């Protein structure tokens, strides 16, 4: 029964990962931000 339960948990994790990819959206990245606005 424990093995069955853990299999269900694993299945849920995989379904969530698939669901998350379906919900996700592509964003234009602005990730090369600097830590300051000043100049050295």
């Amino acid at each position, binding site marked *: 029964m424990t093995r069955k339960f853990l299999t269900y948990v694993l299945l849920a994790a995989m379904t969530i990962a698939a669901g998350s990819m379906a919900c996700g959206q592509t964003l234009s990245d602005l*990730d090369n931000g600097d830590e300051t606005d000043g100049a050295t």
Partner: protein
Amino acid sequence: MRGPSDNPDEAADDAATSGRRRPSEAVILGGLLGLCAVVLLPILAFGFVYDDGWTITANGFLRQPADLPLLLSDEAARRHVPDAFRPTLVAFDVLAYQLLGLLAPAHHALSIALHLLVCWLGQRWLGILGAPLDLRAASVALFGLLALHAEAIAVISFREDLLAAALAFGGAIAASQALRANSARRRGGHALAAAGLMALAAAAKMSAAAAPILWWIAEAAAPWSDAPLPWRRRLAAAAPLAAGVALAIGHTLLTHGALSPYGGPGNLRLFANRVGVGPVLAESTVIHLGYLQQALLPFGLSPEYVDRGASWGDPAVLLASAALLALLAYGLGALRGRRRPLAALAILGALALALPTSNLAAMPNMRADRLMYLPSWPLCVGLGALLLALGRPLARALRSPSLAYLPLALMAILQGSVLQASAQVYRSNGAIWTVAARRAPDSARAQALLAEALLASREREESEGPETRRLVSAARAHCRRAEALDPLDELSHLCFARVAIARQEWATAEHRLRRALELSVDRSHRIIAALAEVTLDLPGRSEAERSARALEIIDAGLREYPYAVELWVAAGRLRHRVGDPTGADAALARAFALAPERWETSALTIEVALDRGDPARAIELLDERHRVLDAAAPGLRAALERRAWDHSRLFSPTSGGSLLLSDPSTGASLR
């Protein structure tokens, strides 16, 4: 004890649904907590975003643990220590920084661990109240995977909500244990723990101050007992929780001189100060109905919402008010005579926990997903019970015990999927403000901060390229939109100032920065730093006048914000530019002490050493701080190394490092 297994019908259901042998409690809870952890794993790749700059990365106070006692007086607030009114949180942040440094994945792991701890403590308290394992496990699965929690978990600095919830549950557990303790000694120990934990919880975030009300509702409703314990005993057990809250409120009063740390009527960030409390409260009814929808059906989540007022006559407000009043009435009716104790706990508990952030007391954000972190817990308990109840007939009809958990599993999968997807928004500031401007286009803050993110994304090496011009133009358009939306928001003016700085329009930048400073009531250090630097570049003034004014501004800023790293770096840069290398070194040394991870400080210190004609010191620094400089742009680092090498080649050690005493063409000493 009154519980599902004591009711003949439900006992039959349990037998049908749970089977003869089911996994142990440790396996069930461990498996579900593991599931929550796995779903949240992608967060480990995120960086420091949002308020993390103010409260963690550029917060020099975290690097000065000896100054922690300042939190117990008004001195911390006077020195603008970030979140000085949340001493538990600041102490926790100091400890976390001392242990983890600025390793973002480690801080995210800490947030995830805190969230799992809250899940575990919540079910532990339910266990003390007598809840069956099924429901406790359902509360873990739903609360652990609730999509509405994405913001609170994914943004490091919002661990304040997680920390406060963990401590509040700790207090509730201790109070419930005190209520059930057999000996006076144990009762006293638990009561003391309850008071201490509750004080710490409210001092981590004041919204946890409503937790004693939740405790009272749970103990009075006693959903899993035949009868609640006598009210006198309950009162005695609740008193330490109330005392803990009173202690935290007393601290806020002592250190801020008022119940609210957000200042008086002059603070325009509080929307109630603009339109009055009535319209804000009217809109708040719609907001809270929205929270309920988001908790049950996770759509419409956003990193930003627009503050707005509403009229009590608006149809949406009327409907929302009616719905909330109906819920309140139903909850009170359910509590009366303990007719539906679990429904009473879920509804009244959530309403009570939402009270501190319901805009009755003005707040800088009228609405934010993170505000619902703790209030969503009673909802998860109620929803868990409902989904389990829905599953039982299904299992019975189809003669498959496992199907009893199908509705719960489907809801958990839905919430978990949206949680994982929603958390992605918080991976970087660029992502946050892009999404914020898309979902809340009428937010001046979202427009202004998106502009800042655009400007920050420019490549340093290409300050004049077409891509830079495109980014500056796009940023300017967002600034215009921000100003049109809210001319009284200092961020709108700061936005224009940043664009003006990018275009080297110093007079415009100064004008905008001064206006931003006028409107700003707190966190003005970035404006002051920029204003001081811009003042040094103002046209039409003598150099002496510009230098004196710039230094005056930065020195005043440093007195006001002694832990703000940005100001110390700006002071170092200014002193360097006005020809004060000793002053520059002192300011940069302080900046390095307050934030040693910041590459800009080290790069500037090396530059100062080189300009002073001390290549040996520059090379020493390049070697000492090579790990910090790894984060700098490769071009900048290469330029510094090249300069240091050229200096050491051109100026011999015997020259004393002085340009006047060396032959620049040969490097030979003239002495």
